[in-house]
């Protein structure tokens, strides 16, 4: 099978003719003077696991609540499967939501919580509880069906909430910080559990999160939000490798940022920076000599050596002294003080056993390929 055919099948957003499942068109939400969501347009496709990523107060939850029908947009239009959602109340929408606090009904058992949605549809008790039993098996809670929410652990409550939101087989599942209340280890396990369930049921997921690791692990695509607008939409790899702005570069992962001016917009781009001197960076279009730009360098793209590497047209090399080392096991984080006093963050993988690792106060050479350095214009 060719790559394009595969892409059209599993990555519909790459196919320009594909029909989006959810269309968000120029949505704005204002609370008094405060604009929570500012003119957002976004298409999401069937079967996607889309992550809205941003800090607190960036408008991501408000956007999710407008999709669920809990907030009415000030302006704009939301289409789900071609149907305009204006004037459709939450209880009539083909969406279900998993709440950040889980919002389990405290007076009902696990079983009754999960059955709630089916009974509202007018399903018979026998049919509803048969489906509930199936769903509890999917989330591995069949042994706890008669328990009350307060008798469950955080992870178990999370799975009840997920089961309850999936029981009506919604076209679209909205998840508000679904893993936020879990501890780190449980969170990692649950991430893969979520992906398994999403792939089993084929439901479209929209996940709101402030945790970039979570977004990177879960998402087919990520929308990075800041101050009510989406600053970049893309696959996790594209967002990480080719951030469009300093905000995105800084928000996703860790990054070294340097200001400078373009001297030669060729390949590689040559940029004059006050802090590092002349730098070579990955070529991109639309640059002109003298333009103000920023250089982004991921810490793991830098090599540290004790001897100076051979000079090359496509390699940047700077001497420095190791100020700080944090050994994490699978990798080590370094802070290297460059000649002009500027700190450079470097991450080295501990893939190979090193008898004589670089340590504190050692003089080193930091080097990286021009292709590792991205030119940002905003």
């Amino acid at each position: 099978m060719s790559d394009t055919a595969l892409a059209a099948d599993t990555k519909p957003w790459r196919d320009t003719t594909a029909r989006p499942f959810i269309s968000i068109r120029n949505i704005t939400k204002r609370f008094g003077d405060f604009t929570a969501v500012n003119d957002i347009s976004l298409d999401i496709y069937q079967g996607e696991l889309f992550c809205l990523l941003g800090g607190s107060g960036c408008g991501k939850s408000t956007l999710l609540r407008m999709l669920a029908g809990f907030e009415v947009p000030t302006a704009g239009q939301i289409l789900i499967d071609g149907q305009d959602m204006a004037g459709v109340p939450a209880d009539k929408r083909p969406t279900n939501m998993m709440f950040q606090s889980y919002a389990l009904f405290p007076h009902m058992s696990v079983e009754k919580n999960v059955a709630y949605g089916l009974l509202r549809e007018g399903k018979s008790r026998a049919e509803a509880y048969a489906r509930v039993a199936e769903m509890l098996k999917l989330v591995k809670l069949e042994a706890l069906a008669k328990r009350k929410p307060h008798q469950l652990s955080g992870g178990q409550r999370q799975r009840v909430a997920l089961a309850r939101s999936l029981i009506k087989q919604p076209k679209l599942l909205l998840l508000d910080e679904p893993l936020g209340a879990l501890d780190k280890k449980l969170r990692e396990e649950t991430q893969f559990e979520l992906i398994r369930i999403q792939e089993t049921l084929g439901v479209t997921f929209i996940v709101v999160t402030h945790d970039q690791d979570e977004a990177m692990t879960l998402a087919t695509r990520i929308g990075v939000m800041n101050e009510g607008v989406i600053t970049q939409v893309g696959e996790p790899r594209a967002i990480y490798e080719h951030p469009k702005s300093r905000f995105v570069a800084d928000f996703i992962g860790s990054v070294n940022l340097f200001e400078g001016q373009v001297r030669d917009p060729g390949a590689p781009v040559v940029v004059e920076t006050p802090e590092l001197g002349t730098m070579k960076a990955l070529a991109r279009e639309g640059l002109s000599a003298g333009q103000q730009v920023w250089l982004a360098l991921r810490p793991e793209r830098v090599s540290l050596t004790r001897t100076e590497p051979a000079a090359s047209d496509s390699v940047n090399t700077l001497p420095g002294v190791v100020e700080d080392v944090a050994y994490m096991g699978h990798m080590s984080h370094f802070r290297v003080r460059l000649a002009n006093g500027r700190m450079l963050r470097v991450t080295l993988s501990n893939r190979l056993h090193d008898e004589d690792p670089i340590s504190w106060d050692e003089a080193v050479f930091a080097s990286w390929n021009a292709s590792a350095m991205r030119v940002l214009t905003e």
Partner: protein
Amino acid sequence: MSALTDNALWRGTARVMGRLGISGRTLVIAIPMLWLLAFFLVPFLVLGRISLAEAIIARPPYTPLWERGPDGTLHIIATLENYRFLLEDALYRNAYLSSIRIAVISTVFALLIGYPIAYYIARSPEPRRSVLLLLVILPFWTSFLLRVYAWMGFLRREGVINNTLMSLGIIDQPLVMMQTDFAVYIGIVYTYLPFMILPLYANLVKLDDALLEAAGDLGASPTVTFFTVTLPLSLPGIVAGSMLVFIPAIGEYVIPALLGGPDTLMIGRVLWDEFFSSRDWPVASAVAIVMLFLVVAPIMWLQSVQNRRELQ
């Protein structure tokens, strides 16, 4: 400086108390215990003791609990005659039943009126909520007796209501409202409504909005959400409010005396008559003790139901 001395002072006190076997926790619990002992349990025992005596014309007007015989032996005089008398005389049975009926009906009306008010206040945004709560408590600034007299002004034959309705031509004859059970219900519901609203409000204000949204999200209309989520979760508030209305209503004396008619039979009035008109303290005490158990029994039952539910 002052924190240091305070600390030294406190440690010294704690050491002395420790030597006496008193911890801070015991001290905190001891104060309400002593209060209840002195002002609740002791009077109750006195009442119980009087209810076992016989009425005599003397001061105090009941027989003593013990007597020394001529040979110096101690005789304890106690009789259950007063309780047997309550059982036999239909007046008391009717008064108890009528009190319970009036208290139950008043409680139901207070709930039906109070619930929407409490719900509305709990759902109001903050500045308005405080104002509304203040309005609920505001009547307490005026004497209870004055407010009952004000109702007499409304309900009288030539009162505000009759005058208004007559002048509007809605009725030809003045309605008889004073000295009826109707006036008693109005008085009790009006007086005790804040005791229904406040616990309900305290319960409803804690209700998590996300639960209501979750119910809506799962397809429940606002009405269904109310009956499946809001109402069951506010049950503790309903129980607390109902108790706070039912208990004072069952023993109410002033409202039936002022607004009720001669047919309005309530145990509070019987008690008053027994005590002050007949001067039969032992029977009055027995009436009071039986009433206490009538009130305590439903509370105990509700508590046990609640405990059982929590255990499940």
